[in-house]
């Protein structure tokens, strides 16, 4: 009898959802996504729409390898007087370099690729190598609802909380029921 019971007890434990352990890489990835979201300039929109830019319409038939050109420039809309006779001050046509810099916006990832710093020898310092090293201590968990110490973690999505009240609020509002 005793050996049989032990085996049943063991098999029940394996199926128990409460003993789910979240992989640290997943948690790390989720934090990274959250940090990237915190870099946004405006809450409500995608990066392409912005002040002064028209709605998305790719320049049909004009694809030239640089990507979509802007239709209008916001720097044309500012009405200020500059002294002197530089192209910025007068309405003279700007040089080719300036015009292409104004018309094509590249995001940072593209610029980093184009700069070729990834292919430098490892001893050369660059933007990519200058990051401070990862922490030696584990992260201090703060309750995601009220900000006190987060001593317990949600079973489904691993967000920390501090007590039963906060757990209730978390499950009703923010729990995604999965880590990512």
């Amino acid at each position: 009898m005793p050996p049989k019971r032990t085996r049943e007890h063991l098999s029940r434990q394996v199926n128990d959802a409460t003993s789910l352990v979240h992989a640290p890489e997943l948690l790390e990835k989720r934090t990274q996504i959250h940090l990237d979201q915190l870099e946004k300039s405006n809450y409500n929109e995608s990066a392409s729409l912005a002040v002064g830019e028209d709605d998305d319409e790719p320049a049909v038939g004009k694809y030239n390898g640089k990507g979509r050109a802007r239709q209008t420039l916001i720097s044309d809309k500012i009405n200020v007087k500059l002294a002197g006779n530089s192209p910025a001050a007068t309405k003279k046509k700007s040089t080719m370099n300036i015009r292409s810099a104004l018309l094509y916006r590249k995001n940072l990832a593209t610029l980093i690729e184009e700069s070729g710093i990834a292919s430098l020898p490892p001893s050369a310092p660059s933007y990519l190598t200058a990051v401070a090293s990862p922490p030696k201590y584990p992260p201090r968990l703060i309750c995601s609802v009220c900000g006190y110490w987060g001593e317990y973690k949600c079973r489904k999505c691993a967000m920390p909380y501090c007590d039963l009240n906060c757990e209730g609020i978390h499950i009703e509002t923010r729990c995604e029921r999965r880590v990512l």
Partner: protein
Amino acid sequence: MPKTNVVVLDNGAGTIKAGIVPNDSTEEQSVKLVPNAIVRSKGDKATYFGHQIANCKDYSSLHYRLPFEKGFIVDWDAQKAIWDGIFSQEALGVDSTESSLILTEPYFNLPNIQEIYDQFVFEEYEFSSYHRCTPASLIPHGKLLGSPPPECMLVVDSGFSFTHVIPLINGNIVWSSIRRLDVGGKLLTNHLKELVSFRQWNMMEETYIMNHVKETCCYVSTDFKKDLESTRPIVQKYILPDMSTSRKGRLLRPRETIMDSEQVLLMKNERFSVPEIIFRLNQSGLPSAIAESIASLLEDIQPMFWENISLIGGNTKFPGFRERLFAELRFLAPMDCEVGIYESDDPVTEAYSSAKEFATKPEFHGHCLTRAEYLECGSSGARRKFRDWKTKIPSKETTMKDDGPQVQNASQRPRVRPRGVLLEGRGR
């Protein structure tokens, strides 16, 4: 013959600090702080460029367009519009064709972006000459660490986009020892927006207002545990601005009562848990980044760096920043090293003031690239003239030890007592 003006443009991602260096014929003007953004106000139904933002009446739900992304210029259209505004009669009123320029760039600026800086300065604005450098390389010229500045110093620059730890030897940056944390004012404001939006009012679109709340209410606590467990005396109430009566947002003063029409933000642990991110983040925190940076230098000169740490950048203005940093560094530094932290009177404009000092020195013009040189050899002239991280790329093998210049024993030279606050301590 009138001397050419020197225009200083400390081109930050959050704020541009702009001004003209006074010479004999012009008088001193104060520095202009221009937000580096184009905003659209839904209430005013108008778009404001840079310096015009001061004219905006309705700050709620301002839509921001920033030329900078993660600390580098990606949107040149927006940047040009803001620069046009700064150079125009509405702000500085300077004739760029008759002026020299000092322009700051981010640390480890990408070479393709650097070329565009050169193009705008010489082909669009046609400045007669210019010097492009990082803000930290200007600090030795200023008064923050005394005159002459110490041979070994460490600059902590915590701004809008990120925070860097920059060691300098004899005024030159040691590029291989720089460490970067991707925490800046922008991330802190957005984090505060999230916390407040979840717990009280939805402020996700109110970047301008939350930025002001952050600057008014937040501080760095010296003992996080103690502060978190005793929130009673820490609660502050911030009265939100009222757009219809154009009242600005402000703190509730003691013994003042709240009127019914006012909306109030309750600031509790957010006050200190938001700036705490600088000190404890996923990637290290600031104190360990400083320790790491110093540890990567020659052992003999490390104590000199611990003694000469200076703070610049808007984020260092949080009350309690210096004390907290000192406490953490005292713990990390070797027992026989003094820890000295210098804080300027105005961390935001410190690089600007140092640039002004630099511009008045006779050797300044030797460091400038003239328009004639640029038109002849393009950006390679800039690469030769401006010392930056690319000059350290080895094609021959150079290690850190052979690299920097010889360092004298500092006690052999007299030093004027520096301005700024000094904190010292000796571990026993």
